[in-house]
């Protein structure tokens, strides 16, 4: 298991514990934890509704693919540490990481 955090609008950080051996993506875990992630495209890096900002621990996430970078580059509100949660695999490297949701939620 691995534990990381999601920072809410009010600045509070909430832990999520997730299995790191099931090949899950961060998007899937966020959805399963009832966060309002649309994930319209189902994890194909097409809709960017699972856009997250990595507040801490970005080095453990691995590099983004060209497809993901193209999507992020097109967004009107990217940050220097933006990622698409559907392209981030849950692994031990995520221990202690902090994310903030930035995708469209309607």
């Amino acid at each position: 298991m691995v534990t990381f955090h999601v920072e809410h609008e009010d600045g509070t950080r909430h832990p999520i514990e997730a299995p790191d051996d099931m090949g899950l993506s961060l998007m899937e875990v966020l959805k399963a934890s009832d966060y309002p992630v649309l994930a319209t495209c189902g994890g194909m890096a097409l809709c960017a509704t699972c856009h997250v900002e990595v507040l801490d621990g970005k080095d453990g996430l691995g590099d983004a693919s060209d497809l993901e970078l193209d999507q992020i580059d097109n967004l009107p509100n990217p940050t220097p540490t933006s990622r698409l949660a559907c392209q981030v695999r849950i692994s031990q490297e995520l221990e202690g990481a902090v994310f903030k949701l930035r995708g469209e939620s309607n």
Partner: protein
Amino acid sequence: MITTDICIIGAGPVGLFAVFEAGLLKMRCHLIDALPQVGGQLSEIYPQKPIYDIPGYPEVKAQELVDNLMEQIKPFNPTFSLGERVDHITKQEDGSYVLTTNDKTKVHAQVIVIAGGLGCFEPRKPVLENLEKFEGKGITYMVKNPEMFRDKKVVLAGGGDSALDWTIFLADVAERVTLVHRNETFRGAPDSASKVFDLANNGKIDLILSANLKSLGGNGKLDSIILENKSKEEIVLNTDYLIPLFGLSPKLGPIADWGLTIDKNAIEVDTRDYSTGVERIYAIGDINTYEGKLKLILCGFHEAAIMMHSAFKYVYPDQKLSFKYTTVNGVNSF
């Protein structure tokens, strides 16, 4: 006016297979899709990618699956309106519907099946106060008629291929073109990027890098844009037009206004027959949602079969539906 039994919105794999299931019950189908070709995401986004979870196919390329589905539904002579989006539906006195597309095609159908997948790809909008107020009054998300920008001041925002291409094109049309991009570099085609840098170096366009759109100004019509650069300084641009080009994002589109129950961009259905809350309208495939929903092509196929058996009562109200196997009856074309 096109007349059919079933009008299917969306010609992706699930919409196509729905034609087969309808055909077995002697119901005719017309399909409408916003894309210019059939196949939906499979043909548009990943035609050469292999799919591994279609029963009976250990591996099949996406386009090959679409081609096979087209072959499979051939006996039932479906008709198509491609490159069109359904904008309105109007309920008739007898309960049937007339669908109208953006190209003014009209289709009369007893039943509507929404198999719209991710929905329509629509321009992604920047988050700016008063954005909607200026839409059509200086803000446009696509260049349909370049002549409207002739001798006008135009600001484009974005860094992808379309922002680069339109900057290059409009440089010869508009009085002044300004491209605003939040980075120092472009991820678009290197050729186009170097052309844009050349135009800027030659004074043909203004290129403002490392800046973001911050606010809009104008009284009824857009006349200025305020940008913010890396050092948080404001830059005011006077302009006639702003064209934000931040890529496309899948949206439900006009379907969202048809009185259906929508949850997170998907249509809620009754899993007994994949009907929506509105009589004679069904939703199948990736566009529907229910407890335990899996966005899989094979689940969409299953939904299509169940749904068509339910729709039979609207097409043939006086007939009793008898369930038949293709192994017993074959496929009787019409």
